């Protein structure tokens, strides 16, 4: 479906399919940015949320992952460069009542890591005392809800070389997601590839 065809459509509009045990929901917004959410068919857990925004020069942009991550092996012949797989990797995978991040490949002791809330910039900051890792995490959901982060609510642990950070979802968001889950159940998505209407 090209962009011209959708001119008379009401934004945002959504379509969905079920594939590989995931219900994939594609939403296009008025500024032509696209969002794809993938839910587990069995328990309706949100596995992936990714965005693609229109670029200035035109053409298709890159998908940006908000939740979940893409497994893309590095190919030295074609790819330019990519962080080595030994580096810490952040993946957000929420539970039903809290935001959760897992940072794999954190090989140092627990006392090296320091996770805090930066109130001024409304973000979570991970520091290391040996200056090997530093990461600022923002929570787009909280920004969308215009809610402040509370330092006391942040929890984190370190085991099996993985840093697990959780922050409770505000009740308003939990409520919102429950409504959305209900809608999702009603959403009639077909199995397999969708046929375009004009075909």
């Amino acid at each position: 479906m090209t962009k011209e065809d959708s001119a008379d459509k009401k934004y945002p509009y959504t379509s969905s399919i079920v594939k590989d045990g995931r219900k994939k929901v594609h939403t296009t917004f008025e500024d032509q940015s696209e969002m794809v959410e993938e839910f587990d068919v069995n328990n309706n857990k949100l596995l992936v949320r990714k965005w693609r925004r229109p670029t200035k020069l035109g053409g298709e942009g890159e998908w940006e992952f908000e939740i979940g991550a893409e497994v893309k092996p590095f190919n030295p012949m074609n790819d330019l460069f990519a962080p080595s797989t030994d580096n810490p990797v952040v993946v957000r995978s929420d539970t039903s009542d809290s935001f959760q991040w897992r940072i794999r490949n954190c090989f140092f002791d627990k006392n090296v890591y320091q996770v805090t809330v930066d109130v001024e910039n409304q973000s979570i900051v991970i520091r290391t005392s040996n200056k090997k890792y530093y990461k600022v995490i923002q929570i787009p959901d909280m920004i969308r809800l215009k809610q402040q982060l509370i330092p006391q609510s942040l929890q984190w642990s370190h085991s099996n070389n993985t840093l697990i950070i959780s922050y409770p979802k505000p009740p308003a968001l939990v409520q919102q997601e429950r409504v959305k889950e209900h809608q999702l159940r009603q959403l009639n998505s077909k199995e397999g590839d969708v046929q375009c209407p004009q075909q």
Partner: protein
Amino acid sequence: MSIPKITQEVKDITRIERIGAHSHIRGLGLDDSLTARASSQGMVGQRTARKSMGIVVHMAREGKIAGRAVLLAGPPGSGKTALAMGLAQALGSETPFVSIAGSEIFSLEMSKTEALTQAFRKSIGVQISEETEVVEGEVVEIQIDRPLDKGAAGAKTGKLTLKTTDMETVYDLGAKLIDNLQKEKVQSKDIITLDKATGKITKLGRSLGATGDFDAMGASTRFVQTPQGELQKRKEVSHTLSLHEIDVINSRSQGFLALFAGDTGEIKSEVREQIDLKVAGWREEGKATIHPGVLFIDEVHMLDIECFSFLNRALESDMAPILIMASNRGITRIRGTDYQAPHGVPLDLLDRTLIIATEPYSDEEISKILEIRCEEEDVAFTEKAKTLLTKICTTTSLRYAIQLITASSLVAQKRKAYEVDMIDLKKVYELFVDVKRSTQFLKDYQNEFMYNTQEEVDAQEDEAVATDNKSMDTTE
């Protein structure tokens, strides 16, 4: 000069540029008042032509005048392409310079006019600032692994460790980026920026931590603070793209339609119109600046009448670049017609071009050019050999003489001499025949070749000679 065998590894580090026919040219060799110096920046002689090209440089730099055409006319080997290359160098890397050969547009992939349009649009640069994802940090270590068998096609792999004051990350490198890193001569303790999408490397300077490493530093060495925070960040970067590149980004058919579009390499005119509108919009908003560049078409007589009429039309667009053409033809047939025209270019197009003539070189100029080429190809000649080479050049051609330089140096290497002497040159001169001798050879032995059409003519000639001989016999 010694001739040590340079090993692959040593070569890899410095990355020697390959020597081409015009690689010795570094500019037009003009001073500030646009007067041509006798020999400068690899250019010799051709003073008036160089001065005229200097004016073209000014025209292109100001970028105000669109759609001017210049024709370089002169005999083969008189430096037409060299002048164009010099112009490209003089314009610098900011102004787009596109060089094509006239025969390049006759491709089966796309129509002639499409090829010309693409060439035109490649020579117009759009400078625009865009937010891109970059990695910025101090180089801790570069590690490059070469495959064990050097000749194998296996890609080089490597790792690059970058750090900020807060973190450190190891990156896997692709073959293309390794090449870029080597070209930019990136070292440990350099502060660099890597563009995530294009792999472009920008060296910001040396780390402040490296101040005490060496006593002597180049005047241009800049010391920079190691960046803070995360390595990956979003940054507003200003870069120049050609109109054609923007066309390509926007013309990719989306989704499954790409399967049916077929990649003919042609870009729809609707896409172009859309881009033109978009660019004009950016320009009005002050988001982008246009840099009209220079399009050089070598061997322009290879174009046919349709291309010429297209050029006429295309030059009228206010987005047109400065067009430089070169031709070594005299009055000849315009391709695709039966009409004769000077330089093989129709009169209506000639009428709107500025014509720059190049003259054959004088003997001193030739010897100077050969000297520059010897230097470029890193070959030493004895004085006698040099005079002989100049002589060969005047009797044959400049191009042939230049071919002999490296060939004779290889012969000299074989007898373990450091300088090329008369005997080496003589040997090469005998080994490789020039056009004149080759024609002579053909004339002499044409009966032994296949399909020689001259046979009949010769037979008649032979008869004539025979009768001549007879008559001479009788006179005797």
